[in-house]
């Protein structure tokens, strides 16, 4: 029995109440987030229902968008959304994973260390810390890319990227125009500038999550690989990357989701033309850009149509996430052996 002199006591009433309240609060917020998500989806789908009844599946397969004639269909936008996202994902993944490896596997720090060694400052109390600091600075800079507002990316694309790539595009079209990718000329906004900017926008997501996943790979696994006589390349590709693959892939799926839904920069750069083309230089349109451009002047009746388009975008992102989760599961069991 507790006495006055004993230090150990059961939790007081206040402690017990705080504990219960904290748990309830956390649970409440979690449910709230889920409920909000459901309400958003529900509202959009309900608002889309009249348009779904009116236009049916032809909305998904047609290529005309003419509010004056009340003709609506979004196949070019579906194509543009998927095409731009997939292309951006290819570039973003290549650069993002490479950057994550570079930052997580000590390449940066090693390079700075080697530089310091030349001037014999590598163990200096101040300069000796530089390798790690440079590594952190670089990864912070890359994460800072995620903080740049979408509209700034759009402006940058208009005034920097388009003038920059235009000469190369002209040349590619003139000399290699028989390749479908270069089938049209770049007349200003178009798929390529949109994809370039989109790749940069999704890069920090892939790099930050990828770096986290790589850093989470236990050092002892790397040591095991090196101990068996693996080169750095072999250790990274045979051990570190496969072990971190689940996390890296999670980052890629997240980045794909962002690419699909990215609005402002694309509305400014993609050209907003109802065209289906594999040419990188052709103007195109995406679902998100269509919504952003069409909403301001939409009549109440058009809103239903736009909600239909929004529902399609939602379904696409949902499918991508489900497919991503499935692929992660599948590759994980392939790579890591069967779990018992």
């Amino acid at each position, binding site marked *: 029995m507790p006495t006055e002199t004993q230090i150990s006591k059961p939790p007081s009433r206040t402690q017990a109440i705080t504990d219960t309240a904290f748990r309830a609060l956390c649970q409440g917020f979690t449910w709230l987030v889920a409920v909000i998500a459901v309400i958003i989806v529900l509202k959009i789908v309900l608002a889309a229902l009249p348009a779904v009844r009116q236009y049916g599946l032809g909305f998904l397969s047609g290529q005309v968008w003419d509010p004056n004639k009340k003709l609506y269909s979004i196949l070019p936008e579906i194509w543009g959304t998927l095409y731009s996202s997939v292309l951006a994902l290819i570039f973003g993944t290549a650069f993002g994973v490479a950057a994550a490896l570079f930052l997580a596997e000590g390449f940066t*720090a*090693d390079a700075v*260390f080697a530089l310091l060694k030349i001037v014999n400052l*590598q*163990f200096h109390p101040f300069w*000796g810390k530089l*390798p790690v600091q440079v590594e952190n600075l670089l990864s912070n800079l890359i994460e800072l890319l995620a903080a740049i507002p979408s509209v700034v990316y759009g402006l940058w694309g208009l005034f920097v990227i388009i003038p920059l790539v235009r000469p190369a595009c002209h040349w590619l079209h003139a000399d290699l125009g028989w390749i479908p990718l270069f089938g049209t000329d770049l007349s200003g906004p178009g798929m390529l500038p949109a994809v370039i900017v989109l790749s940069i926008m999704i890069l920090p997501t892939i790099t930050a999550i990828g770096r986290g996943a790589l850093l989470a790979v*236990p050092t*002892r*696994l790397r*040591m*095991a*690989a*090196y*101990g*068996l*006589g*693996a*080169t750095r390349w*072999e250790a990274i590709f*045979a*051990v570190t990357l*496969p*072990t971190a693959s689940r996390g890296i892939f999670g980052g890629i799926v997240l980045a794909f989701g962002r690419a699909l839904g990215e609005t402002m920069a694309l509305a400014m750069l993609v050209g907003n033309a109802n065209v289906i083309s594999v040419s990188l230089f052709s103007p195109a349109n995406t679902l998100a850009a269509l919504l952003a451009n069409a909403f301001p002047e939409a009549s109440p009746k058009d809103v239903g149509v736009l909600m239909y388009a929004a529902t399609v975008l939602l379904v696409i992102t949902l499918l991508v996430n489900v497919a991503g989760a499935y692929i992660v599961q599948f590759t994980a069991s392939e*790579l*890591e*052996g*069967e*779990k*018992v």
Partner: protein
Amino acid sequence: MPTAEIASQEPVSTNGKVDPSVVMDCNIENLYYGSFKAVRDTRIPVQKNAITAFIGPSGCGKSTVLRCMNRMNDLVRGFRLEGHVQFRGQDIYGPKIDPVAVRRFIGMVFQQPNPFATSVYNNVAFGLRLNNFKGNKAAKVEEALKSADLWDEVKDKLNESGLSLSGGQQQRLCIARAIATEPEVLLLDEPCSALDPVATRSIEELMKQLKARFAIAIVTHNLQQAQRVSDKTGFLYVDTSEGSRTGYLVEFGDSNQIFHDPKQKETQQYIKGEFS
């Protein structure tokens, strides 16, 4: 260092000064991490078909000395060695030697079991793949698992994750992985410190079997273990006289002699358990 052909059984040449049974002659004059001198004056020969144990208090540099023997220390930024390690008649710290090649001939097992997050089979086959082994991989994997006393326990679950095994099994899997490529020397860095007594016993039995085929060097903080398994023992101690903590070899000899008739005062005290 010869090319990375596994099981190249060329005779061990020696530099004339050491005993022909010595596979590796590790002679550390000074070893630094950055400006910190971690080990000094430590010469340990590792013999064929014998187990050489390093004992000593925490922080005396036992593991550092072990990691010197397959150039694992090269992975530490700022590592520097004065001295040499003779293996196959060459200094493995020679200017033309690739540390990666060294590690293919000198296997290592770590303190924490560290199987890769892949199947049991792929874990053991890892070294074979690194060495571009063209022969019958499945047979080699089976042989290594049998040598590591693990075959009977895992033969029906070669496709399951190595991480699904128990701690002791994982460590034996790591031993199988290390010996699959038939290295000449096997370095064990406190291989039982994360294991329970039963698993520890099975690893010790395994070491005694394996010494027929490999030269084994083991670091242990467990004196009884060193006494039970080792043929030669080196005792390392910490020198704090220069205001730093530098490990050095106090005494090296037959395990019987070290444990029953130690010559140095520090060894006597340590063996008697007067300090640790």
